[in-house]
């Protein structure tokens, strides 16, 4: 419990920054929605005349035009997934490696507690932090949709289903980050790693949607939880989402196993 509390206190500032910045960006994006609903006629002709795959390359979907509320929200949420993923991988890379980086491993590991307990406390602290941000994103999404919808009648079922994917996305990146951090010798700079992982996989996902390519889509968690698909169909794209679920189920126990065996560098 002490470790849990200590880690949470350490993460407090980071939770505050991410918890403010991400909803702020989300709300900021959505407030521009009223500016969008202009040139709809040209768009509709465009939608009617192009094959779906072609439009997909430009991030458009005939069932979810960009000037519709959910169409705009799906683009916004696609962007918001990047910082969410980066935060999660940040914690993943950070949480098990921080003692070694800051040379406090001797202190922690000479305490009369098992590594198992350390591992569980640390994970719980990180998951708690991620959940706080998740809730803030959820609340601000619903709130901002209510604000910008105007006269429109909206059904929030699909939005809620989409927002429920955040936890899975976070855990996937968190797990991947953790496994990498315990398999390599030293995590010299957390940010470099988490940026490379977050943005790298985002680039893979974007190329995947431009090219409608299967392999890119399987590799990148961002395309497992494609906002467009979920907002249209109201369900997860399980054939892809399953990859993320497997990643979570594999990486977290594997990190536990590796952390238990790890030769932790001491002073």
């Amino acid at each position: 419990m002490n470790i849990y509390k200590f880690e949470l206190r350490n993460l407090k500032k980071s939770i505050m920054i991410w918890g403010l910045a991400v909803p702020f960006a989300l709300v900021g994006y959505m407030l521009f929605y009223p500016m969008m609903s202009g040139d709809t006629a040209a768009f509709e002709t465009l939608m009617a005349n192009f094959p779906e795959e072609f439009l997909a390359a430009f991030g458009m979907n005939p069932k979810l035009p960009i000037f519709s509320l959910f169409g705009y929200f799906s683009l916004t949420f696609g962007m918001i997934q990047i910082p969410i993923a980066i935060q999660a991988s940040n914690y993943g890379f950070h949480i098990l490696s921080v003692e070694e980086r800051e040379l406090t491993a001797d202190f922690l590991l000479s305490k009369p507690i098992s590594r198992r307990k350390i591992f569980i406390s640390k994970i719980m602290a990180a998951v708690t932090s991620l959940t706080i941000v998740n809730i803030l994103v959820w609340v601000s999404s619903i709130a901002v949709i209510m604000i910008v919808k105007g006269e429109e009648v909206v059904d929030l079922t699909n939005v809620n289903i989409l927002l429920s994917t955040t936890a899975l996305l976070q855990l996937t990146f968190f797990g991947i980050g953790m496994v990498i951090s315990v398999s390599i010798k030293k995590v010299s700079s957390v940010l470099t790693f988490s940026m490379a992982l977050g943005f790298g996989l985002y680039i893979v996902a974007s190329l995947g949607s431009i090219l409608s390519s299967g392999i890119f889509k399987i590799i990148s968690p961002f395309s497992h939880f494609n906002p467009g698909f979920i907002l249209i169909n109201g369900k997860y794209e399980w054939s892809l989402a399953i990859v993320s679920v497997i990643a979570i189920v594999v990486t977290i126990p594997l990190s536990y196993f590796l952390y238990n065996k790890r030769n932790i560098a001491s002073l």
Partner: protein
Amino acid sequence: MNIIKRELKANLKSLLFWIIPLGAVMYAASVEFNAFAGDSAIADAMKQFEFMFKALGSSVADMTKPEGFISIVSLYIYLPLAIYSGLLGSGIVSKEEKDKTAEYLFTLPVKRYEVIRAKLIVAVVYSMVINLAIVGTVYLTYLRFEVSDGYFRFMSNMSLGVFLTQLIFLGIGMLISSVLKQYKKSGSITIGLLMGTFMLSILIGMVDGKLDFLKFVVPFQYFPSADMLAGTFNFGYVIITLVVTLISVVGTFYFYKNRDLHI
């Protein structure tokens, strides 16, 4: 000279760590591009509706041609390279304090500005190396498709455009690291800046035309691939880039000289 050699060696691993996966992704994209390269149906459809794309402010590039396709995916060259340079800039300055080697380095008989000068040279050289490696990879992998005469010009323009974008973030990263009292924060702030401007850049593209006045704060909008394709550089943005970079570099030298090192 010794410091330059030492820095070159210290940052080599991370350079390769960026170049190899990024090059691989770019190559993989070109393999996938194969599927619709030269597909005349798509090209015709695009031509027919060119006016509409123009009206919507979207890219009018023909994505069945290598040049057009590269210009559509070019953001994924600009972005990672800018991230690399930003992180390199902030990391190379703050790493002595992070790794607790500042004490060692600054007891050597070298002036602080000589240290920073060496680090700056290495950062610029590595930014150039990654730029040439990635743009070069893209250039070579797309040569197997039918490229037009302007292809080489386009790619060399883009290389320059990307490099200027890198310089901005490199300079800002170094400046932040030397100004901030806490070395730990410099990386986060550089990244915050990168992400903020990147997301703003996407927003500007989405609500086309209405937010153009914000473009000057977003380096990703300075040298868009459409301009690179046409072979034009917006003179104003080139000036902004050079001024920002110059101020950052001068500022780095100035602030680092008086820095209270965290030991």
